[in-house]
């Protein structure tokens, strides 16, 4: 019985539409039936592009998002069915590290109070002094100076803030830590420091990780077993070296072939499998195998019958009807995989907006992780809470690379050059202010709420 078992977990966000009373008109199938096992002390890597549902799955395990169906069995207990209070107590043993180092720390609390909130909530340590001692220990473990206690999040660099996030999880002595894109918002040189830190902590404290990331190289480096997700479900799972040596699912092959390697020799002879078109909308997933609309080997059967994740030997599982034929090379390509896949412009099936099923057109979302405003349909007038949640998760999914951290990572104390690099925007711009005179309340206080619910991105993390 492994420490953490997910059995056919589904997370569907209801799309609500209606004039006055909202009735559900459809669903965003963010996570659509995922089963996996994580052994104690092991690192399970969950990889996939934005919109594949990996972040939603991570949050579903911790019930930060309601699970529609399926079981999350942790150390023998199904968390999905636990009442609120009991689940709260269990949270001590399952913790989370977040992607955005600045956004995940309360800007108005100093480090000591951030780290002691968790302990207070679970009654660890008699008084503040005892908690302060524990905090000092943990700060040393994650490589932060003890004078950090009285300082505030905005006074640290991105790497240091991520260490604070890790310390916050460690303080509760958890068994499992879910790392949601732990290093993708950091600079390249700082990424390595945090990766090494996570590995050292795993050895010294016997931690179990579920690492969610879009960067295959990072996931391969840190994980024992890797699961590849596409549009809400697992398409392949295997030990990391085996997966790299012989990917079986067409999507994994395409994904692996698209990752650039910092070595000219490898780059020059790397065979690239280019996919056509964009990711379909999770609110309107294609029938049968989700990947058949873009798969270079797509056959008729793929559009009709959805393949099941089956074990093809020594822990290597794949969800594709023709995995064996493709590996043996006996199956003909039905779509180009070279440059013509990119420049040829016959309407790709995924593009066709078969909008009949649900109000949201198929082509509404793209691969763009930060895509917020999908195509407007009459659905836009609905207060689509589902999409507001989906939108928030999609943002969390964004493969935000090094340059973006210039914004997230520009610590106050740091020299201005980092800030200047993100300078293109005139910085001290006063926000459009309220019409304060008289009662002309310009309602922009309402904007964020209506904005989020108005956003139609059908993307989910």
């Amino acid at each position, binding site marked *: 019985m492994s420490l953490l078992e997910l059995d056919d977990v589904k997370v569907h966000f209801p799309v609500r539409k209606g004039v006055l009373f909202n009735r559900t008109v459809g669903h965003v199938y963010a996570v659509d039936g995922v089963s996996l096992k994580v052994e104690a002390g092991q690192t399970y890597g969950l990889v996939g592009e934005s919109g594949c549902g990996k972040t939603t799955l991570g949050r579903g395990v911790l019930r930060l998002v309601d699970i529609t169906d399926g079981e999350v069995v942790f150390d023998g207990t199904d968390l999905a069915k636990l009442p609120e209070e009991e689940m709260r107590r269990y949270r001590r043993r399952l913790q989370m590290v977040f992607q955005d180092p600045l956004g995940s720390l309360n800007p108005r609390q100093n480090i000591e109070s951030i780290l002691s909130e968790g302990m207070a909530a679970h009654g660890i340590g008699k008084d503040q002094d005892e908690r302060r001692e524990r905090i000092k220990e943990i700060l040393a473990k994650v490589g932060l100076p003890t004078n950090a206690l009285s300082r505030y999040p905005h006074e640290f660099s991105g790497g240091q803030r991520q260490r604070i996030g890790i310390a916050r999880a460690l303080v509760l002595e958890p068994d499992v830590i879910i790392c949601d894109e732990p290093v993708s918002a950091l600079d390249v040189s700082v990424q390595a420091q945090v990766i090494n830190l996570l590995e050292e902590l795993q050895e010294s404290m016997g931690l179990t990780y579920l690492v969610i990331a879009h960067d295959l190289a990072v996931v391969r480096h840190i994980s024992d077993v890797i699961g590849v997700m596409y549009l809400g479900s697992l398409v392949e799972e295997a030990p990391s070296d085996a997966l790299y040596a012989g990917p079986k699912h067409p999507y994994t092959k395409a994904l692996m072939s698209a990752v650039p390697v910092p070595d000219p020799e490898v780059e020059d002879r790397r065979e690239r499998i280019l996919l056509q078109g964009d990711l379909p909308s999770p609110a309107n997933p294609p029938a049968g195998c989700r990947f058949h609309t873009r798969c270079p080997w797509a056959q008729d059967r793929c559009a009709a019958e959805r393949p099941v994740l089956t074990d093809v030997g020594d822990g290597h599982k794949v969800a594709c009807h023709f995995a064996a034929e493709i590996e043996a090379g006996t199956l003909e390509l039905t779509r180009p995989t070279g440059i013509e896949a990119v420049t040829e412009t016959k309407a790709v099936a995924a593009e066709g907006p078969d909008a009949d099923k649900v109000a949201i057109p198929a082509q509404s979302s*793209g691969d763009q992780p930060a895509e*917020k405003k999908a195509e407007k349909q009459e659905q836009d007038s609905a207060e689509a809470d589902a999409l507001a949640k989906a939108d928030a998760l999609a943002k969390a999914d964004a493969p935000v690379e090094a340059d973006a951290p210039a914004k997230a990572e520009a610590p106050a104390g740091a020299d201005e050059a980092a800030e200047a*690099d*993100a300078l293109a925007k005139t910085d001290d711009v006063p926000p459009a202010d309220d019409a304060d005179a008289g009662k002309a309340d310009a309602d922009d206080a309402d904007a964020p709420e209506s904005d989020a619910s108005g956003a139609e991105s059908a993307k989910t993390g």
Partner: protein
Amino acid sequence: MALLSVEELSVTFTAKGRKDSTAVDGVSFDVDQGQVVGLVGESGCGKSVTSLALMGLLPGKGVKVGGRAEFDGKDLLSMSPRKLRDMRGSQLAMIFQDPLSSLNPVVPIGVQVTEILERHRGLKGEAARKEAANLLDRVGIPDPTRRLKEYPHQLSGGMRQRALIAMAVACAPRLLIADEPTTALDVTIQAQILELLKELVDQEGTALLMITHDLGVVAGLCDQVNVLYAGRAVESAGRRELFAHPTHPYAHGLLGSIPRLDAPRGEPLSPIRGSINDRIAWADGCAFAPRCDYYTMECLTGTPELTEPRAAGHQVRCVNPVLPKPKAEVSA
């Protein structure tokens, strides 16, 4: 003669109340006709500001720009704003990082393509629209005539980046500057866009200045690579030479700290200690000294010069470069 040669470019921001901050502190590099040159570095190294300075897109007030940037014999930095505006879009074009915010949300895609055709190629009305449809078709956007009437929010990120590329290459510019064009995209879409860029550059013979932090992208795309740190070039060499023998401690450390897809699981990473903030001004010495394992007192006596310790054309700005042991056997 190089198409573009940048000498000692420096950009300093002055804001009342805050001390001056130098984003670019003497960057020099050349771009030949049809060549792909990479500007590589982490955030805060000044690579984006460099590209904005070349295009004259830095804000008017509060910015001091020094040095020269000769494009086809004419210095971009001292050129009259009107003449530079005429060159932008026709001779020099640029692609930006975030396709989501780089397109005008309230103007149809078609208009945003035809406006550059009207400005530089004098195409009007139907002719402009037809050419715009061709351009969208060429960059792989399906059903281009329908897309002309659509708005940016109706396209996916990948499609939007292609639309931006279509605009950039609309007037067959001689130099294309791409500032992190694929950073905000997923890896399979990134692969599509990089292939598209490579093909457009090969077909048209356009020079490409590629700005990125991703060494993998550089390894596959660039002929010449310049590594930037804290606003200054610390190493520049041909693609194979740089990746085979990274000589500046920063470049060497960077390559050692990146997880590679083809590296087996066991191999540990050797990170560079500290972070971008732990640095000193170039005037006082090598800005990388606080994070460098090889630094000695000489590193702290003024700005190190660019030398060629390993091979001709492989410039390094370091007093204690990383050379293969023993030092004597320096390969030509």
